[in-house]
């Protein structure tokens, strides 16, 4: 903790509150996250995990409290703002466009245009996108023979790996992964967890939301436990076991 205390957090939440009508979704949530850190965000259904990530990514606007990215106070008007500030979010089931090529998916919404007049007319530079997508993905340990094949030809685990690789490629500070190993088998989950580890090596901060506690314990450095909209534990992963984590989530051992 002494090493991180001197560094500036890439993401900091200060006293964030969020209500849906009279329902209190987040209550006085504060935490700091640092570059090169994988943070597990766990909690029961309705604990506020989704509300929290939607607040960080700009889908929700908090009623009070502050969000700082890399030391700068930020106010999101839309998810687009948080993307521009260097935060990439991979929502549960949002995924990729299956009928587009892997390269087109990596560059979706950020298409490289051709040079000169054609580029100004909106022409895409497919060759350079396919080439760069291949480089991006291989840097995070995803080996692809051809990026011009469609995503529909990949397995579920491969798709998720590409989706995370895409988020890593564009994020400058934080990537938020909402249940990335949901519906995946053991081997496919291992592929995905490996890509998450490589995001840490790239100096990114990863917020990993999951119900699968062994995955959380395997891949994270620190775990934040949410219960009824509040942060009830925020501690290094080595201090938890599956049992103690489960206890913190349910509040039964207090």
């Amino acid at each position, binding site marked *: 903790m002494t090493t991180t205390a001197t560094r500036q957090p890439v993401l900091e939440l200060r006293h964030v509150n969020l209500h849906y009508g009279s329902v209190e979704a987040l209550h006085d949530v504060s935490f700091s996250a640092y570059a090169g850190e994988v943070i597990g965000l766990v909690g029961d259904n309705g604990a506020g995990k989704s509300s929290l990530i939607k607040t960080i990514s700009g889908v929700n606007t908090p009623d009070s409290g502050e969000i700082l990215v890399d030391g700068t106070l930020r106010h999101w008007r839309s*998810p*687009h703002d948080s*993307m521009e500030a260097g935060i990439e*979010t991979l*929502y549960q*089931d*949002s*995924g*990729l*466009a*299956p*009928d*587009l090529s*892997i390269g*087109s*998916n990596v560059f*979706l*919404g*950020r*298409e490289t*245009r051709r040079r000169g007049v054609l580029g100004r*007319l*909106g*022409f*895409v530079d497919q060759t350079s996108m396919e080439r760069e997508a*291949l480089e991006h*993905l*291989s840097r995070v*340990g*995803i*080996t*692809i*023979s*051809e990026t011009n*094949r469609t995503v529909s*030809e*990949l397995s579920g*685990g*491969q798709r998720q*790996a*590409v989706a995370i690789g895409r988020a890593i490629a564009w994020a400058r500070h934080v990537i938020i992964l909402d249940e990335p190993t949901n519906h995946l088998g053991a081997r496919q989950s291992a*592929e995905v967890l*490996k*890509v998450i580890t490589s995001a840490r090596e790239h100096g990114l901060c990863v917020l990993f939301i999951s119900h699968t506690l062994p995955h959380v314990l395997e891949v994270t450095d620190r775990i934040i436990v949410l219960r009824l909209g509040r942060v009830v534990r925020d501690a290094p992963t080595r201090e938890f076991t599956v049992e103690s984590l489960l206890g913190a989530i349910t509040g039964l051992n207090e």
Partner: protein
Amino acid sequence: MSTSSDRVGSPVVAAPAPSRLRRVVTNQQFVLFLVLLALIVFFGSRNSLFFRTGEFSNLLTDFSGLVLIAIAETFVITAGGIDLAVGSTTAVTGVIVAGWIQPLVNHNVNQAVVLLVGTLASIVIGALAGGFSALLITVFDLVPFVATLVTYSVGAGLALVISHGAPVGYNPGAIYWSASGVGMVTWLVAIVLVVAVTLGVVLHLTVYGRYNFAIGSNEFAARAAGINVRRHLVSVYVLAGILAGLTGMFFYIRSGSGAATTGVTNSANLVAIAAVVIGGASLVGGVGRWAGTMLGAAVLTVVSDGLIFINVPPTWIQVVVGALIALAALLQSFRRRSRRMT
């Protein structure tokens, strides 16, 4: 870059691609091209007059009356929607434009001015019709099928009200102009083909086209990637309306008058959708090719004209079109299954 996809310790992505030959042979556009050639040979062998340049010119003109709304459907369908309104938008634009520019014709205004005014008017009317569908879909959250059915019905009714059920206006000059050109290709056809090719380029080579496929493939992913899905969908239905409006102007130029039956009694909306489906597009969205739609429209044009040429009663044409759609759909599902097996 290593082509090995089983490097130890790395997630493995993408199985080896099927051979190039297999891809070409199972390619829907390639099969369609062969079907088109076979149809031309068949009709030509039954009646050699089919190969006359005059008949070829007729085919091109009939093709032009279908191809713009078929391309409109390609944009809408690959974006995950459907547009049932194009046929009646064609009709209502035809009768309104004919009524508006008849006074210009009566006062012997320069033919080029008449055509220019008519074209601009048809773009505006078409855009309004498409905008009405877009409003129902994006603001009132109606599904595209229902929204465009509303627009279709309103358009078909308005066309009858405005025209009192009779052709509107008479402009023989338009007919003379439409029949002139270079060789078999009239100016009218040439302009339609230029518009068609431009739209193909937009669909497959630009950011706009890319967003179109992305939205049709996974709307949520498109939105998460920062694409303004609502704005894009509005533009797509407006584009479809404009192309239907231009088709209305096309038939006005061709016949010299506007009629409420144009595009309605022949179910042009369904023929256009058939061209897209025969061309290999998926009605779920995300999959489709401009070239497929062009070939689909060509096949439908050759079949309908050719059957008349070999004295098959026109009433049978729709039955044959139905069989063609069934064949195309079977081919598509066969391809999908064979790809899954590789």
